[in-house]
């Protein structure tokens, strides 16, 4: 194997000079604060907050940009725990399992303790995954340096196949969403031949659709419209009281194995291309229920249930970044947005990044560690103040987000064309929600599409267009074959499970976890 380009030790040290500046530290703090505020508002997701604020990072250095964006990401993940505990409504989809035990705790007067457990579990889960990122990142990157077109094509297909798991109850709708993402990704000039595709004579489309404009529309403005459609702007929340946040410190010791197990699950699931924090928390909660000594108490306000969910969803962040930074393949839709933001900065995530810019990788790693510490401090000291966010009238909040979406889309290239792309994407996102079609596969396919196409065509051209010979290379590759088998398994498993559960009595009331969430009809 190729020697590890960036040693593990260097990742812990080299980036400090980039991070230890008042601006960067302030940006991390601001990111966590903004993330917590946005995450605390039910319906406003981490995807939305990161996507809407990406344009503001364009004038920053890559380290500053990643500092603020990861701060927002982690902050929103924690912020989502607040409404999950206080009003039984997850702030972000990744917090949906936190409602199951968090809200019952809150109802019996332990809201502060529940939030404290959430903060501490998030901090420990997040920190664990960052340490894994620092250790496993260079190794994975060194391994991936040997990847050729066949391997990259296989990994991109794997990323798309996880759509089977993130598509809710209907796999065909997930596939359709991904196909539309692939189609949108082909708009513009073909990278290999220079011919224009699907541009309909529009000069502005020659460079392709701006990824960030599409994401801001789909996750930003479309979600505002969905919230309005679901009448969330008319809701006046009545949160439970918060007291005794620090009492949760005593819970950490008895929960240590829950946190450890959930952190490992979160990191591993997060690292699988296409999975993400929501799936991680669902699997972690399910595992905890299976191994719990008192499974009957889970769902009635058991700290272990809340801890399992919150540890895993924050741990997924490091896992997802591991895949994104070392392979250049996004772990979930949020890392797809981060990937887009880094590419705008001129940074190309992938194995060579660990070799060519160790300092930047190290700074990202350190930013994540600091963001987790900020999350701990702000979360423990500021929980009761963040809960006030639930009082902010939506009649002010939604117009504000709309203005941010439109201004951000214009700021991408100083062009109103991007604003119209954003608006059309918002319409598409809203229609997807109406037709119960998941949006995450579209975003993943939009960023994976060019990787998939370029490597497929490179592979074909290596064999003069011979499909059989190309397929032979793919299946004889030590990476390609296992990855393709895993892909086949990911597609087949849900269907096999579905067939095994065809007993109608068992199906009553059952839902796929990806379908569970605030219904926005």
């Amino acid at each position: 194997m190729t020697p590890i380009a960036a040693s593990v030790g260097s990742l812990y040290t080299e980036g400090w000079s980039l991070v230890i500046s008042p601006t960067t530290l302030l940006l991390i703090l601001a990111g966590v604060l903004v993330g917590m505020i946005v995450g605390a508002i039910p319906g406003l997701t981490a995807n939305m907050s990161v996507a809407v604020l990406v344009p503001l990072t364009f004038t920053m250095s890559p380290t500053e940009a990643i500092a603020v964006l990861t701060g927002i990401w982690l902050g929103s993940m924690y912020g989502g725990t607040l409404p999950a505990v206080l009003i039984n409504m997850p702030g972000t989809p990744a917090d949906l399992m936190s409602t199951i035990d968090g809200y019952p705790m809150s109802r019996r007067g332990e809201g502060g303790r529940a939030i404290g457990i959430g903060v501490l579990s998030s901090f420990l889960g997040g920190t664990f995954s960052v340490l894994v990122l620092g250790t496993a990142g260079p190794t994975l990157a060194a391994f991936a340096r040997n990847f050729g077109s066949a391997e990259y094509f296989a990994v991109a297909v794997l990323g798309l196949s996880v759509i089977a798991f993130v598509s809710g109850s209907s796999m065909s709708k997930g596939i359709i969403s991904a196909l539309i993402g692939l189609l949108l990704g082909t708009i513009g000039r073909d990278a290999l031949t220079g011919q224009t595709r699907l541009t309909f004579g529009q000069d502005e489309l020659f460079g392709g659709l701006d990824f960030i404009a599409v994401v801001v529309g789909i996750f930003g403005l479309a979600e505002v419209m969905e919230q309005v459609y679901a009448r969330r702007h008319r809701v006046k929340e009545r949160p439970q009281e918060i007291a005794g946040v620090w009492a949760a410190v005593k819970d950490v010791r008895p929960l240590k194995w829950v946190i450890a197990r959930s952190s490992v699950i979160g990191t591993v699931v997060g690292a699988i291309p296409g999975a993400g924090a929501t799936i991680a928390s669902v699997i972690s909660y399910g595992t905890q229920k299976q191994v719990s000594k008192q499974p009957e108490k889970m769902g009635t306000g058991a700290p272990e249930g809340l801890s399992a969910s919150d540890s895993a969803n924050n741990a997924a962040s490091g896992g997802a970044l591991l895949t994104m930074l070392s392979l250049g393949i996004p772990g979930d839709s949020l890392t797809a947005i981060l990937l887009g933001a880094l590419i705008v900065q001129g940074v190309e995530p992938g194995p060579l990044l660990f070799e060519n810019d160790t300092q930047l990788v190290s700074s990202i790693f350190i930013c994540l560690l600091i963001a987790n510490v900020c999350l701990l401090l702000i979360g423990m000291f500021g929980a009761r103040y963040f809960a006030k966010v639930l009082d902010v009238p939506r009649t002010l909040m939604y117009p504000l987000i709309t203005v941010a979406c439109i201004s951000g889309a214009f700021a991408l290239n100083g062009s109103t064309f991007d604003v119209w792309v954003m608006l059309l994407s918002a319409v598409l996102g809203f229609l997807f929600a109406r037709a119960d079609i998941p949006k995450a596969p579209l975003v993943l396919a939009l960023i994976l599409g060019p990787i998939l196409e370029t490597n497929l065509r490179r592979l074909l051209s290596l064999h003069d267009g011979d499909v059989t010979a190309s397929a032979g290379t793919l299946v004889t590759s030590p990476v390609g074959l296992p990855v393709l088998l895993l892909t086949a398994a990911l597609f087949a498993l849900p269907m096999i499970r579905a067939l095994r559960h065809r007993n109608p009595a068992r199906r009553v009331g059952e839902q796929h976890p990806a379908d569970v969430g605030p219904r926005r009809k």
Partner: protein
Amino acid sequence: MTARQLPKDIISGILFVLLGGGALWATSELGGGASIAEDPALLPRVVGVGLIVSGVVLVGLCLVRRRLGVTGADDAESIPVDLPVPEWDDRAEDDDSAPGEWRVVIGLAAAVILYVAGAFELGFITSTAAFVVAAGLILGRRRDARSLIVLVVFAVVVAIVAFSGFFELLNVRMPITPLR
């Protein structure tokens, strides 16, 4: 059967078939290279065919479900998972039969389009402030004096902060407009 009665899966399926057909049509004139590897239409055409097949599958599954009298996610490709499902607070949630807030959505969408048209033609700050006030009223903000004053002040602050944050800070060139 009226359009309203058609299940949304059937409507979606038909639209995807049309979209797939459109992709095939739009790439029909793309010149193929010497080999399949140099054909720029390879992926769009594969995706077009995929959309047609998926659309047909979606419609077919929906028709089969209707024929069998099966509703909701209770179909062959649903993915049951033995996990507890959170009980949602239903204060603001609709069931499938309840109409959504279409009127407000359309009103807000119209305001957004007017805002986009105005912001970069007439003037960003003025249009933004006007949009925030209009959107607040469309969303049902109370119309007593105090609420309106708060809304207007908020709108002006948002307009100035957005202008400074996005355009002054990022040095993005704004079109020269009659109203700043």
